[in-house]
C-alpha cells in the first residue's frame, strides 16, 4: 500500500468531482434540496388548517353561535354559503370537497332539548362531500369529534375518559428531526454505490483500468483510495445536510460519535455492493441499472422517507433484511433517542454486512485481464 499513490488518486477523484457539475449537484445540492422541500412541507404539519363551507339554513342566533364555535377551533377556516343556494350543486360547481349544512329547525330543537329536556329533540348536520378528495375524511373526522364534544357537554356530566399525552422523547421532536438521519443514510448510500459502480465499471469499459494495471498501483491502493474518496464526499454531504437542517429548520438532533461510525459503515457496505455489481454486470450501463434496482427498494422500503411501521406486515419484514434499514435505525437511535443499545445493535449488524460485502467486492474486483 502506497500513501503517495492513494493521495494521487484522491486528488484526481476530487478534481474530477468538482469539475463535473452534475456530480456536484446530485451529491451535495440534491440532498439539501430534499431536506428543504420535505422540511418545508412537514414544518407546517402541526399548524395545518382545514377549510370548508357552512350553509346555515336556520339563520338564528343559536345557529350563528354554532358556526362561531366551529370557527373557534383553530384547525378550521370557514366560509358561509347563502341559505337560498342548492348546496350540492354549489359544491359540484365550485369543486368543493365539503359543505356543512345546519338544518332549518336547529334553534327550535336545541331549545327543546335544553329547556324542556325533550330527548326527542335533535338535529342532523349534513356533510355534502366529495369522496374522491384525500383530505375530506380527515375534515369530517375532526368535525365529528367537535360535535361529539358538544353533545357530551350538553349532557351536563363530566367526561368519563380524558386522554393525557406523555412523550417518550426528552425533547419535543418534529417530523424533520426524523427525516434528516434518513436523508444522511440515503445520500451516503447513493454516493457510495454509484461511486463504486462508476469508478469500476465505467473506467474499466473506457480502458483506464487497463492502463493503470501497467503501473505500480495495486488493486488494494485503488480500492482504498476510492473508499477514502467516497468517505470524504459522504462527510461533506453529511455536513451540508446538517448545516441546512440546523440553519433553516432548527432541528433538535444529538451529534455524537455514532454518526461517523454509521457513515463509515454505510460507505463500506455500499462500495462493497457496487464492486460486486460491477463484476456481475459486464457493461457500465447494466451495472448502473443494477445499482438503481438495488437503490430504489432500499430508499423506499427501509424507512428513509416514512416510518417502516406505515407499511404492510410483509413489507416490514422485508425491510428488516435491507442494510439501509439498520443505518436508518442506528442513526435515529443515536441522533434522536440517544439509545446506545439500539445504535450498537444496528452498528454490529451493518458492520458485519459491510465487512462481508466489502471483502467479497475486493476479491471480485478484476485488475488484470484474463
Amino acid at each position, binding site marked *: 500500500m502506497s500513501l503517495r499513490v492513494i493521495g494521487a488518486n484522491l486528488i484526481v477523484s476530487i478534481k474530477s468531482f468538482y*469539475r463535473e457539475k452534475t456530480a456536484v449537484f446530485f451529491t451535495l445540492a440534491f440532498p439539501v434540496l430534499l431536506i428543504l422541500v420535505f422540511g418545508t412541507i412537514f414544518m407546517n404539519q402541526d399548524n395545518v388548517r382545514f377549510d370548508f363551507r357552512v350553509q346555515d339554513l336556520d339563520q338564528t342566533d343559536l345557529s350563528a353561535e354554532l358556526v362561531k364555535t366551529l370557527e373557534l377551533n383553530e384547525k378550521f377556516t370557514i366560509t358561509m354559503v347563502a341559505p337560498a343556494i342548492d348546496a350540492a350543486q354549489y359544491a359540484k360547481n365550485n369543486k368543493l370537497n365539503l359543505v356543512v349544512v345546519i338544518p332549518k329547525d336547529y334553534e327550535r330543537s336545541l331549545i327543546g332539548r335544553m329547556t324542556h329536556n325533550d330527548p326527542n329533540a335533535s338535529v342532523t348536520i349534513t356533510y355534502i362531500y366529495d369522496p374522491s378528495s384525500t383530505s375530506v375524511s380527515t375534515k369530517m373526522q375532526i368535525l365529528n369529534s367537535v360535535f361529539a364534544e358538544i353533545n357530551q357537554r350538553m349532557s351536563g356530566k363530566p367526561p368519563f375518559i380524558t386522554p393525557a399525552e406523555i412523550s417518550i422523547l426528552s425533547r419535543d421532536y418534529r417530523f424533520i428531526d426524523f427525516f434528516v438521519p434518513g436523508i444522511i443514510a440515503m445520500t451516503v448510500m447513493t454516493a457510495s454505490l454509484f461511486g463504486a459502480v462508476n469508478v469500476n465499471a465505467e473506467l474499466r469499459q473506457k480502458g483506464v483500468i487497463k492502463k493503470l494495471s501497467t503501473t*505500480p498501483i495495486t488493486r488494494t491502493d485503488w480500492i482504498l483510495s476510492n473508499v477514502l474518496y467516497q468517505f470524504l464526499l459522504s462527510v461533506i454531504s453529511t455536513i451540508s445536510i446538517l448545516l441546512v437542517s440546523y440553519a433553516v429548520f432548527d432541528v433538535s438532533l444529538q451529534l455524537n460519535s455514532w454518526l461517523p461510525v454509521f457513515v463509515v459503515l454505510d460507505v463500506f457496505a455500499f462500495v462493497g455492493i457496487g464492486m460486486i455489481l460491477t463484476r456481475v454486470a459486464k457493461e457500465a450501463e447494466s451495472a448502473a441499472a443494477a445499482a438503481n434496482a438495488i437503490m430504489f427498494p432500499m430508499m423506499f422500503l427501509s424507512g428513509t422517507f416514512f416510518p417502516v411501521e406505515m407499511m404492510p406486515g410483509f413489507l416490514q419484514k422485508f425491510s428488516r433484511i435491507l442494510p439501509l434499514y439498520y443505518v436508518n435505525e442506528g442513526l435515529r437511535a443515536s441522533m434522536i433517542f440517544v439509545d446506545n443499545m439500539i445504535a450498537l445493535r444496528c452498528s454490529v449488524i451493518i458492520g458485519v454486512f459491510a465487512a462481508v460485502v466489502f471483502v467479497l467486492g475486493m476479491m471480485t474486483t478484476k485488475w488484470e485481464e*484474463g
Partner: protein
Amino acid sequence: MTCRAMTEDTEHVIHVERLTKRYGDLLAVNDISFTVRKGEVFAFLGPNGAGKTTTAEIIETIRTPTSGTVSLLGMDVTKQKRNIVRRIGVLPQGFTSFDRITVRETIQYYSRLFNCRNTDVDGLIELANLRDRSKEQFTNLSGGLKQRLGIAIALVNNPEVVFLDEPTTGLDPRARREVWDVLLGLKRKGKTVFLTTHYMEEAELLADTVAIISKGSIVAMGSPMALIESNAHYLVLTLQSVHNTVFPIVQKMGFEPAHTNHKNITVRLEHQDDVRTILNALKDAGASFLSLDVRKPNLEEVFLKLTGAPLREGLAEEVA
C-alpha cells in the same frame, strides 16, 4: 524514488518462446517465438484480430499466457509483474484517461503512481508537442492529442522498453503524421520500442524489425527492406488518369492490370524492361496517361503475398 533507466547488459530485452494464448476455443496467439534487441523499434504488423494486441498485453503483464515463456528485461512476465511495470511504459490500444483532468495534471498523476520525483513534466509536454494544450482537460482533446498525451504518459518513468499498441489507429492522416514525429523522436533517443500496427507506412517508417503476424502466427520477420527484397521480386507500375484504351492494350500484352480507381491502373512487372515495353506500346497506340510511377512493392503487398489477405479492407483491389 528517482526514475531512471536501469539498463542491463543484455542484447535482447524481450524473449518470447513458443507463446500460445487461447480464449476458450479461440486460438489468439499460436506458438510464436521472437526476440527484441535493446534500442530497436520492433513492429508487429498485422490486420485486426491477428493477435498483435494479445501478444503485446502478455509481454506488458496485463494478460497471462496459456503456454510458452516470455521474459522482459530478464524477468518472467508471469512472476515479476511488480518489478517489470516499474521499468516499462505502455500506451494501450484505444488509450483514454480521466475526462476532467488536464494534460499537465494527467502526466503528474502517472508520475506519482511511479513514485517519480524527477519527472520532467515540461519536457514530456514538449516531446508530445502539447505545450499549447497543457491546461486542456482530457475530454476536450482530439484523438491525435489524446494519443500524444498517452505516449508522454508512457514515458513518465523513463522506461527501458516502451509499448505502443496501435498508436495511430483511428487518426486522420495529419494527426497520424504528428504522432509519427513524436515516435521518431523516441527512436532518435534510442528507446527500445515495441509497436503494434496495421499501417504499413508506420512500420516502414519507424521499425528496425517487422514481424508480420496473421491469424496468431508470425509469417515473416526481418527489416522492412529485407522483407521486401526476399518476398517481392517485382515492380509495381502505376499509370494515372489513363485513357480508356490503356487497360485493354496492357492486358493484350500478357500483363494483369488492375484498376485502383476509375482513372488509375496498376501493373505488376517482373522485369525493369517491361516498363519501356508497355510505354512504347501505349505510344504506338496513341493511348494517353497523365503520369506514371514505378516503385518496389511495399509491406502491404508483402503481407498480401504471404497471407493471401490484405492488411486493411479494400486493399486487395488496390494491389492485386
